[in-house]
């Protein structure tokens, strides 16, 4: 046997409100509400609203869906990205691409020159 529930009547008072005025339904609020969004304020001019008259919400979703599908599934990203190898124009003496270049040098100091064997690390001439 199916149970019959007798739900209490719904309270007609609003359960949520924007301002205190709406809650108590004051005259001030009614006046402001009417003034807040006057018809046609800043939305569309007469011509514009005529132009997009055929554009219903469903049409809009249809068009946007088609555009997204074309953009993402339209094989736009199927090409392999091109990478470039860029060698020197003029061969650099003593450098071997990919290897350190060690050379003799010296650093001056008050006590005399400090001998150094620095390494040039960036000898790869070919960037990607």
């Amino acid at each position, binding site marked *: 046997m199916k149970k019959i529930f007798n739900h209490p009547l719904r309270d007609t008072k609003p359960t949520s409100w924007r301002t205190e005025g709406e809650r108590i339904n004051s005259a001030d609020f009614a006046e402001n509400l009417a003034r807040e969004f006057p018809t046609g304020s800043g939305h569309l001019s007469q011509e514009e609203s005529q132009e997009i008259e055929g554009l219903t919400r469903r049409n809009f979703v249809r068009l946007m869906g088609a555009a997204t599908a074309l953009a993402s599934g339209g094989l736009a990203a199927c090409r392999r990205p091109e990478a470039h190898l860029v*060698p020197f124009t003029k061969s650099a003496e003593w450098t071997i691409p990919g290897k350190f270049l060690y050379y003799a040098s010296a650093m001056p100091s008050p006590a005399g020159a400090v001998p150094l064997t620095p390494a040039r690390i960036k000898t790869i001439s*070919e960037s990607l």
Partner: protein
Amino acid sequence: MSNFFPRWANWLPLQLLICVLVVGAPVTLGVWYYFTPKYTRVGYQPDQPVPFSHALHVKQLGMDCRYCHSFVEVAAHSNLPTTQTCINCHGTGKILANSPRLAPVRESWATGQPIPWVQIHRLPDYAYFNHAVHVNRGVSCYSCHGAVNEMSVVYEAQSLSMKWCLDCHRAPENFLRPPAEIFNMNWHPDSPAYQLEMGTKFKAEWNINPPITCGGCHR
């Protein structure tokens, strides 16, 4: 208590199974075939800024690979020739000095702007590869790059997939060459049996023990 499910629902598990098989099998096979380097990489042949022909330079004129790729024996990276290398032969008053096909080379030489060659063989950054160690130990250019001497426009001949690397690392005797024939693109072993015999000999004599652990390449 009445039946919750209609009679046709008895067939539902079987129908679902058939549907999964019919949809799943092509997807699996498709990914298996199309999502592999063998399909996506092999045959990649981009347009190069200069229509350089390996077939002409290597096959007809008999140039060595190392004239242009000069550091392949000493460095991990096999370099491309600098514009200066091209100009050695194609400079003013030399071979085809006024050819329109060489205009980008002349322009590069005059302005100092390098020629942006399009990379074909591209290993991921997480894989370490050393050209010198392969070339010096009996792996020919041919094994990885194919018959470049036959290519008028270079394309990728091998997949360069990890399985392809491991095929050789697990059994290098199938690919090793005599050291004198490394850069000889026309050399081929007389027979598979000879290749195996020779390869086994080189592998033992040179103590070739290619890494097949992860850290060998992904270091």
